[in-house]
């Protein structure tokens, strides 16, 4: 039923073919059947048109150099070089024009009612797609999803709202069909493809339920509505898709067992609406926030076998190989950033290299995607003023190497294929919808090309340029009442006319199709007293005339090659004139045919310090003569050697022999340690460390949102840190799933993950969890005291056991309806089954002991107490539980529950037999954990060797990765650091940091990268300056004059501008606090 309109269209198409074949000479125009009652008189105008003499591009790469296109009753009836003009056709002479299939706008908010737009959307700048706070939750009414952001049942089809003016604007750009998409929520509902004619809505729908819109929309932390984080949004999408699968299955099962003692299952309109999506029948269109989201969507698509397309943001070229491999189509915008404001050196330092690169490379996005074999379509969305920005920007993309065919395909055949309407749209084949664009000039290359006619469903829509007098050329002028120049040369088209009289130039404009207004310097006119009639006998006066200054105004109207009109000199003298065109203008050469970026964009992550591929892994590496801190039983080996083979340590000792070809590192005077492991980090997380929307959020996964571009990762490498335990924040008693990574800088998110690391989860006790919602107007979230914390945990674990039984019953055939999968409880069950280990944020001894007793009772696998600043008070109990203590070296007193934090904590816990690590919980400390370790020596007298263990082997043991990393022992990964002094010395720093036998950091390489970045930056700054000079000179006036070369118009340096958001750093700038204590929403 959903595809009913398409079927109709197909029938119509078949019928048209018959028409074209049999009745094209004698066809009778038929009025379109609609259910809308006729008001007044019926419109029975004939709908047969022949477009004659044009160049016809039937489809990308398929051109008829000169032919005729016949449209009959809304569809293409005939097309070809020798097609006869039907007798009943209205004939349109389109000689000199090019005909294209009507363009398809892949994403639009046209016709969208207020209810499906984000709140406040109408207040925003016309056409602008600005980032804005996500929609607040709407109350849930009806039998639908419990989460207000899950509204797949919404459908623009039943909400389409007429907007003739908006439609006209898009039609003027050549768009004949648009995909109208709802704009609220995570699952936002179904879009509809609508043709952009003037028929009623019913007749305009090309395809209903074109796609299901999906957006990672999150509330602010302060909204306290799940989800408040990207990982929460992804978890919610995952759970919802599972629910949709379950819903279909359980409804089917119930249908077979109703009345047989089975309780009626719930009805849920939202889950029902997702049926076609989980069945892979309906396209899921995911909106990206940055290019990192692409991989996240592809993982979901893979997991649920979804049919997906992506709507990008303009940086997709950075992940083009992945997109090509996945064969996923992408809808891309053309909102290229303006040149950044770089005039002030002190301000320009804030413009980062990756932003400059994006400015330079954005126009190349399409060409690079095309080159990589990615299928893409264009959209005008995200442009502020599509009507002036769209074509110039598309042409810019073409100048960057996109072919005309590729550009055309991105507007026609590709979107038609993406949205499943290729049978009727996208080409000018006979039988297809009568959607045609008629353009004069090279639409894809020339800035003066214009669209003269647009046909939608076989109806003509004349554009401003249609039959507009083309004034360009040389005109021989006859003046009456004034002595004027014999010849005027007019160049340009439309709104950009220049007129020249000899060396003097003036301006001209066309107020309507037939008229022209000109302004010329008065000095080109001679004495008004002379009446002349010959155009050749008199020449222009100049200083000898009456008029030595001012501007003369001329107005005329014309037909073909003749103009006649009047004029007035500055002194009020009026005159008449006629002109005849003696020569047509030479066709304007398209400006630059090719425009190359300076930036190569070949580093990942983009910008400074990115890599051009993984570092080499030498077959053998031999480190010689170093002071080797093994963090293993061998202790510290003076004058020691370490032999590495293909990324693994094979020997550690003295006087090792280098295999042939081995890379030998002379470490004389240096110290060598295992890579440092940070057991508590929050860096490299996209959009939200805490899922604050729920006290229990076990289903959210840090692994879904790893941000491999966070510069903090690189800074960590420079501090000798190689492994991170990236944790959910501490807002919730039962937080989210953590992700252990290796800092393989330059890899994507998947490439960073520490394969085989024991899965874990973050729990939290104390002030943060009971205060998480203290900013909410009403405290509604349980728990608000330390008493409630163990209760909610216990309750969740009880539910998890029941969940396990429910499934066991079903599998054993003891129940009929399939149970719902619950990812939250499944995670809890993994914990109970000791397949997922707990890292618990904790401070005070009372709460710690309470949790220990719960862990005893439920036999919970507690890997670490995190922070655990009062661990020293209950050290024997922690030791007995077998949990580790991952603490700060000396942080304390930042909040009340840590007033008893003491720097001796680590030493005291270690003395009690607890495996102790020192962690960072901060992007800063993570760079210098070696000197944090030294504090164990100072406070409590831990030996230097054991102190270093606090940041190497001990955290490895806590994370249960100690068989792989954490010490320099044979069989382990070659993760090591070469220091220029003792790692415990404040005066020492890393010179090299290696992971898996690959050198990821080298101080010399770093300096070289800085120099490279500086050079590229200088070149880009020069380019930006040049563009800024041009743009500022052109000024805001350019915009009003219809100069379409750039949309919003540049602002002079220092002027008020909001354009900064165009350079929004989607990359972490590394300056965020990244701590779980100084979290958004006032958590401390």
């Amino acid at each position, binding site marked *: 039923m959903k595809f009913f309109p398409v079927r109709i269209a197909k029938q119509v198409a078949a019928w048209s073919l018959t028409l074209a074949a049999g009745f094209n000479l004698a066809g009778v125009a038929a009025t379109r059947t609609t259910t809308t009652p006729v008001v007044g008189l019926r419109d029975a105008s004939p709908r047969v048109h022949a477009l004659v003499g044009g160049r016809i591009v039937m489809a990308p790469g398929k051109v008829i150099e000169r032919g005729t296109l016949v449209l009959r009753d809304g569809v293409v009836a005939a097309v070809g070089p020798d097609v006869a003009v039907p007798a009943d056709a209205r004939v349109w002479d389109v000689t000199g024009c090019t005909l294209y299939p009507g363009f398809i706008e892949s994403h639009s908010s046209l016709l969208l009612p207020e209810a499906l737009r984000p709140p406040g959307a109408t207040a925003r700048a016309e056409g602008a797609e600005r980032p804005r706070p996500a929609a607040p939750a709407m109350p849930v009414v009806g039998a639908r999803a419990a989460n207000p952001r899950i509204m797949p049942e919404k459908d623009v089809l039943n909400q389409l709202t007429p907007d003739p003016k908006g439609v006209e604007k898009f039609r003027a750009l050549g768009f004949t069909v648009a995909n109208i998409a709802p704009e609220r929520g995570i699952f936002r509902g179904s879009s509809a493809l609508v043709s952009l004619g003037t028929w009623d809505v019913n007749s305009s729908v090309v395809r209903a339920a074109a796609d299901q819109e999906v957006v990672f929309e999150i509330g602010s932390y302060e909204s306290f509505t799940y989800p408040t984080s990207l990982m929460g949004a992804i978890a919610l999408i995952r759970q919802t898709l599972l629910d949709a699968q379950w819903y279909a299955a359980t409804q089917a099962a119930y249908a077979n067992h109703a009345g047989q003692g089975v309780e009626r299952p719930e009805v849920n309109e939202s889950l029902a609406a997702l049926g076609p999506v989980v069945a892979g029948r309906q396209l899921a269109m995911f909106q990206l926030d940055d290019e990192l989201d692409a991989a996240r969507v592809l993982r979901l698509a893979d997991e649920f076998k979804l049919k997906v397309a992506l709507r990008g943001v303009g940086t997709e070229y950075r992940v083009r190989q992945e997109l090509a491999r996945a064969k996923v189509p992408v809808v891309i915008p053309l909102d290229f950033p303006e040149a950044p404001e770089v005039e002030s050196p002190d301000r320009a330092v804030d413009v980062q290299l990756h932003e400059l690169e994006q400015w330079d490379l954005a126009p190349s996005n399409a060409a690079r995607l095309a080159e990589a074999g990615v299928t893409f379509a264009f959209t005008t969305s995200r442009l502020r003023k599509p009507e002036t920005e769209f074509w110039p920007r598309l042409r810019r993309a073409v100048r960057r190497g996109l072919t005309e065919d590729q550009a055309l395909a991105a507007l026609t055949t590709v979107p038609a294929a993406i949205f499943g309407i290729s049978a009727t749209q996208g080409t000018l084949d006979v039988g297809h919808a009568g959607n045609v664009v008629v353009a004069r000039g090279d639409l894809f290359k020339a800035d003066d090309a214009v669209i003269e006619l647009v046909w939608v469903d076989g109806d003509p829509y004349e554009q401003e340029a249609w039959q507009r007098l083309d004034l360009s050329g040389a005109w021989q002028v006859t003046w009456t009442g004034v002595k004027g120049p014999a010849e005027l040369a007019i160049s340009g088209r439309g709104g950009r006319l220049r007129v020249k009289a000899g060396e003097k130039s003036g301006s001209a404009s066309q107020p309507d199709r037939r008229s022209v207004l000109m302004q010329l310097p008065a000095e080109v006119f001679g004495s008004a007293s002379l009446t002349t009639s010959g155009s050749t006998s008199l020449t222009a006066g100049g200083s000898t005339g009456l008029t030595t200054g001012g501007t003369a105004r001329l107005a005329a109207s014309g037909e073909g090659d003749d103009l006649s009109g009047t004029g007035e000199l500055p002194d009020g003298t009026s005159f008449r004139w006629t002109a005849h065109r003696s020569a047509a203008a030479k066709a304007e050469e398209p400006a630059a045919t090719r425009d190359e970026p300076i930036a190569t964009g070949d580093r990942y992550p983009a*910008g400074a310090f990115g890599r051009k591929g993984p570092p080499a892994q030498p077959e053998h590496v031999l480190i010689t003569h170093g002071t080797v801190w093994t963090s293993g039983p061998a202790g510290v080996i003076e004058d020691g050697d370490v032999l590495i083979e293909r990324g693994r340590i094979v020997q550690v000792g003295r006087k090792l022999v280098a295999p042939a070809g081995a890379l030998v590192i002379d470490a004389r005077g240096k110290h060598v340690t295992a890579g440092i492991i940070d057991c508590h980090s929050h860096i490299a997380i996209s959009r939200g460390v805490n899922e604050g929307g729920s006290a229990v959020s076990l289903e959210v996964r840090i692994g879904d949102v790893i941000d491999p571009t966070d510069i903090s990762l690189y800074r960590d490498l420079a501090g000798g840190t190689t492994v991170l335990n990236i944790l959910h924040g501490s807002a919730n008693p039962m937080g989210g799933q953590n992700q252990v990574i290796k800092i393989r800088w330059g890899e994507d998110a998947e490439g960073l993950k520490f394969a085989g690391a024991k899965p874990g989860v973050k729990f939290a006790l104390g002030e943060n969890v009971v205060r998480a919602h203290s900013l909410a107007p009403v405290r509604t979230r349980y728990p608000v005291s330390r008493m409630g914390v163990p209760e909610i945990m216990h309750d969740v674990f009880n539910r998890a056991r029941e969940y396990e039984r429910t499934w066991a019953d079903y599998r054993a055939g003891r129940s009929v309806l399939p149970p719902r999968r619950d990812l939250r409880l499944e995670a809890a069950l993994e914990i109970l089954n000791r397949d997922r280990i707990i890292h618990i944020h904790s401070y005070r001894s009372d709460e710690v002991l309470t949790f220990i007793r719960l862990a005893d009772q439920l036999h919970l696998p507690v890997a670490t107490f995190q922070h655990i600043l009062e661990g020293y*008070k209950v050290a024997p109990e922690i030791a007995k539980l077998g949990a580790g203590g991952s603490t700060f070296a000396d942080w304390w007193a*930042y909040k009340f529950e840590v007033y008893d934090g003491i720097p001796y904590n680590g030493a005291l816990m270690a003395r009690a037999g607890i495996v102790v690590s020192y962690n960072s919980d901060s992007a*800063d400390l993570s760079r210098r954990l070696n000197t944090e370790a030294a*504090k164990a020596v100072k406070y409590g007298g831990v030996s230097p060797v054991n102190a270093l263990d606090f940041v190497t082997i001990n955290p490895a043991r806590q994370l249960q990765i100690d068989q792989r990393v954490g010490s320099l022992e044979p069989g382990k990964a070659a993760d090591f650091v070469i220091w220029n002094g003792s790692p415990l010395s404040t005066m020492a720093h890393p010179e090299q940091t290696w992971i898996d036998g690959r050198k990821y950091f080298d101080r010399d390489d770093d300096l070289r990268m800085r120099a490279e970045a500086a050079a590229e930056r200088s070149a880009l700054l020069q380019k930006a300056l040049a563009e800024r000079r041009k743009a500022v000179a052109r000024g805001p006036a350019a915009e009003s004059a219809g100069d379409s070369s750039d949309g919003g118009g540049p602002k002079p340096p220092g002027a008020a501008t*909001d354009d900064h958001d165009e350079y929004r750093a989607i990359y972490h*700038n590394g300056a965020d606090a990244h701590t779980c204590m100084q979290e958004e929403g006032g958590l401390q």
Partner: protein
Amino acid sequence: MNIRIALSLTGLLAALALHASTALPAKRPAGPVLLRGGEVHPVIGAVLPKADVLLMDGKIARIGPKLSAPAGAEVVDVTGQRIYPGFIIANTTLGLEEIGAVRASVDSSEYGPINPNVRAQAAFNPDSEMIPVARVNGVLTACATPVAANEGQPVPGLLAGTSSLMRLDGWTWEEMTLRPTVGLQLFWPAPVPAQRGPAPAPGALEETRKRYADQVKLIRQAFANARAYLRAKDAAGGHPAETDLRWEAMLPALRGEQPVFIHADDIKQIAAVLDWAREEPGLKLVLVGGRDAWRAADRLKAANIPVIIDGTTPLPARRDDGYDAVYANAGKLHAAGVKFCISESTNESGGPTNARNLPYEAAMAASYGLPADEALKAITIYPAEILGVAAELGSIEVGKRATLIVTDGDPLEIPTQVKQAYIDGARIDLRTRQTDLYDKYRQR
């Protein structure tokens, strides 16, 4: 901060304050002490491998080999140990803040943008647990500094108040005060949002620019009013008709008697400060914070403006900055000839909880380009100079205050222990709340 919690904690804290650590203020006047046989690091001048230091009447009386002990002097054998001047933390909220997250324990900023008249001294809690903790690593003198309030008021703080130089020993703030007023603390507003995170809302940037301009206007007005007040007061023979506490407090700065400490990290702020400095000749300016100071080293040198570097471990300000941009800041200022000292950064842990790590902040600079002896000066004689007390503090020299430490090694290295500390010649108790808890729970 939840008000209810804050209020309920107030009582608790009062109770805690009564249980301040067992460390007692030193007995004064202190008798003479002869430190015998230590390795003396005077900071100014060469290291004396083995020398005696005589402390008398709160001052360093003599330095030299084999000094004879005056009658009644306590002779302390420090053979094998080292003697350094006590460290000076030049910018801290020590004594003004206890627990960052507990509003009731934070008294470091006053309401409103213009508060030149409030003095740190007035709210300096002598029983703050932070003080003994700072001392154990050799931090014996602190410039307690009001800070600009940013939250909970319409206009952020600009002129936050006047700092006070405190010695970290005494029963009351009065006993602890070395200089009641060191200088005005001016917090230069941020021209653009410091963080470049998510895109600003439409108009937000323009709003920020306007807010910045308004704040700079407030600063200009304050100085203009204070100058007018000074003229009026001089014209009235020093007795103005009405006293304005704010402008009165600014007079020492306007007369060039005390510096104006301007807090600015970003290069755009620093450039703005340098511009403003030309409008206000006659002021003695000191830049505080200075995260981007290395970018303007030549300009700061030319303007003769010293810098109190607020820590060497804050994160680089921008993605493209080198990972060591802030570590290397001091080294670059030194190389450019800019006067500077190093203070403890308060960026992440918040408040003065880790003022004790001051020597390690200095060491980090030494690891990235600052000569090691300069790192030591950066927390001793240089802050003394910038704070105007170099005649009394900052080095081991005869006649200076006997405020010094005895260590078992290089105090810039973490494992080194401070074995003894003297403030104005009196040996101080190195116990802290933390050592008390340590001693207690070792028993368990």
